[in-house]
């Protein structure tokens, strides 16, 4: 995958995958492009799975005080 894809968040990748699935199920489907699009979707799904398994949440407790 490209660097651009690596910088995307999980939810952005999920959105992209949903769009690809919608393409398969929509009227714009073309058999000629199916293999390429399927490979893209498969790669994206693998990437999301890897992200979900490996990524940690970044929890930051703010330094700001709210008591005054």
């Amino acid at each position, binding site marked *: 995958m490209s660097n651009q894809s690596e910088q995307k*968040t*999980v939810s952005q990748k999920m959105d992209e995958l949903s769009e690809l699935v919608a393409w*398969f*199920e929509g009227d714009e*489907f073309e058999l000629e492009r199916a293999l390429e699009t399927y490979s893209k979707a498969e790669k994206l799904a693998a990437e999301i799975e890897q992200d979900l*398994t490996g990524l940690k*949440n*970044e929890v930051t*407790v703010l330094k700001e005080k*709210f008591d005054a």
Partner: protein
Amino acid sequence: MASDQTPKFSVSDFIAALNQSLEYSFGTVEIEGEVASFKVNQGKWVFFDLKDATGSVNCFMSLFQLRVPIEDGMKVVVRATPKVTAWGKFSLTIQSIRPSGEGSLRKSFELLKAKLEKEGLFAPERKRSLPEIPDHIAVISSTSAAGYADFVKILNDRWGGLKVDVAHVQVQGESAPEQIIRAIAHFNEQEILPEVLVIIRGGGSADDLAAFNDEPLVRAIAASRIPTLVGVGHEVDVSLADMVADVRAATPSNAAQIIVPDRKEVIGMLGQLMRRILVRTEGIVDDYLRETNATLRQGLGVLDARVDLLQSQLVTSRQVMAAYDPRAVLSRGYAIIRGEVAKDSTITIEQQKRIITAEVKDVKSI
């Protein structure tokens, strides 16, 4: 008769000295009692008596300090400074007041609920939906509270890659509402807003949770530009902060469940999605194959018919050709004569199985 040691004051000085003594002796005190003769003057000043079975004291405060509805008969705890006024009247200058005891808390809750409901703050049409999978959320809670730890644990179990900014605040007690309001303002002033504002606190007594029924806090939640998710107390606890939030969570753990999906479920769903598009593609390829086969069959049918026609034409042509074949005539006993048919000339006579050379003796016309 007063001795020379006896202090002498003017009235004003005496009142000032008295107030100084009061301030030195008590400073700020908390007093619990029942509210009587509650009234608001000029829309600015609040007066009431605080009493118990045998005593009563006048109380005064400004209206903006009144954060929860109060009415006669309610048991309250006031935080106040005792003072003697310029007219010699003893009173308590109230800094804060909060209902005390289940009955008063309930009463105050109901009064404020009715007021805010009338303003439409709890109306379903005001509710905004939360993003399906946020990338950036803000959390307002006490980082030392069990509810916060539960929230973070479940959040981490369920999802990854989320940016979580946490504002540590008091979640119970007198200063809690203001701290939470400041934290709400802080997140709402960010250049890039978090996608969800989560306000959480674990379980506690009605008194512990009373901060979440504070009117200015409820209004701050309602005014938040960021969609809000509030999870306070246990499932049975309902606060006005819950009611005004865009989404209510039963507990802090439930808030984490609402805010992000479970990664295991999502991974399972990814597999389903891929299977779905595979089945869809296979279905389309099958359709194409069926159509292609049908077209091919149709083409072959046309070709077969054409071949049959040509074959039939060939048979006819062959029959015609056979009819014109001279050998067929010879086989029936006829002969072909070649050469000049004149007296004394030589001719050849071809029969089916032999050729005869003959001399012409005579030629007669018939």
